[in-house]
């Protein structure tokens, strides 16, 4: 018998990760709950004046999405390392590049994708103009995918460390900045009535670049982390 074909293997990994996520519905809701709570902090800190909130809304929503993604990135590989699945994954004959991509894709579907879909609700809470909401959702869907890929690199590099939680934010937050700039830029442009296409195109370009390169770095990081 031959090992599973690469496509079948990736599909199997994706399915496994999704089932694992869906069997813990509460944990699935946690990033969304975090998002809602932090959004609720801003009116308390900045004052409830609708004008102020609306003008800060693009930045606030994007920063909160970024933080929520950061918090979930840490866990992508951790449970697999703890129960020994990760070392089995590294021994698989299929390319680790695609396996890493499957893991990150599953993580994005369970966090960034849901966040993008739920973001219009939070946007309305902050008084963002309805015209900017499609741009917000689209930029979040594209941008969080980049964030998940980059976050995966940090997760892979720190998964073997006992106290990786704080470190991962130090490592990858600088890499999040371009996504933040163009993501909130897209929403801002929509608010000002400018075309959002260029911003989304740049985010899509970031996504292509990170799909091409990030899994390589994740694979290298995992090989280092498993080598204790």
């Amino acid at each position, binding site marked *: *018998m*031959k*090992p*599973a074909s690469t496509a*079948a*293997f990736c599909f*199997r*990994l994706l*399915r*496994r990760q999704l*089932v*694992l996520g869906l*069997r*813990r519905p509460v944990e699935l809701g946690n990033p969304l709950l975090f998002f809602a709570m932090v959004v609720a902090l801003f009116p308390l800190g900045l004052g409830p004046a609708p004008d102020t909130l609306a003008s800060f809304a693009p930045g606030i929503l994007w920063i909160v999405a970024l933080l929520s993604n950061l918090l979930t990135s840490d866990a992508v590989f951790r*449970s*697999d390392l*703890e*129960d*020994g*699945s*990760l*070392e*089995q*994954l*590294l*021994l*698989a*004959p*299929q390319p680790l590049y695609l*396996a890493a991509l499957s893991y990150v894709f599953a993580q994005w579907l369970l966090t960034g994708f849901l966040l993008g879909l739920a973001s219009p609700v939070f946007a309305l809470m902050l008084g963002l103009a309805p015209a900017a909401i499609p741009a917000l959702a689209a930029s979040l869907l594209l941008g969080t995918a980049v964030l998940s890929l980059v976050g995966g690199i940090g997760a892979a590099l720190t998964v073997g460390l006992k106290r990786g939680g704080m470190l991962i934010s130090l490592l990858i937050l600088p890499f999040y900045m371009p996504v933040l700039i163009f993501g909130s830029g897209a929403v801002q442009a929509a608010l000002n009535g400018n075309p959002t296409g260029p911003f989304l195109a740049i985010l899509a370009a970031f996504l292509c670049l990170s799909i091409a390169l990030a899994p390589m770095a994740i694979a290298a990081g995992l*090989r*280092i982390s*498993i*080598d204790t």
Partner: protein
Amino acid sequence: MVNDSAPVAVVLSASELGLERGGRELFSGINLQLTRGQLVQIEGPNGAGKTSLLRILAGLSRYGFTGQVERHVPQLFLGHQSAVKGLLTPRENLAWHVAGESSFTAAAIDAALAAVELYGYEDVPSHALSAGQHRRVNLARLYLSQAPLWLLDEPFTAIDRGGVVALEARMLAHLEQGGTVLLTSHQPVAVAYPLLRLDLTTGQLQ
């Protein structure tokens, strides 16, 4: 040692392996050539580097050691941890295993789980199982896998007497089919088969 044997039969070869940890030399000058149908036990006191050697041979450790390792056939590595997800059932754990083996049929998985005495537990969430049963789920892979080379790290840990006997029988069957088994164990291995010992302190295979 087995230089006269046919090269086809070599499943794993290692030359001049050495490992240093924290400034202390664990082992050095290990030369190893495993052929089909060999049963080899790595011996050495605690902290001698048995697990480290096994991980180097498996390809999990890539940095920090000296020497060369070549694997010529697919391998099955079972480590200290059982790689069982508590949220998945034993059946799912085996069907969606991350090691990239071929897709097993439901019947094959059920047979393997029955062989490790988990008949009737196929669809119970694994977190309801004991640590020993997790080990058994992991050992079920020995009945499913077609890999000729087995690298087993402490396979007898946390399983009961009956499980040990069954595992030894499975190893014997594998060896007789031309498979190779390399293992670390603190227990004596009671398999009716010639056992080679690799002493880490001397680096000699006897």
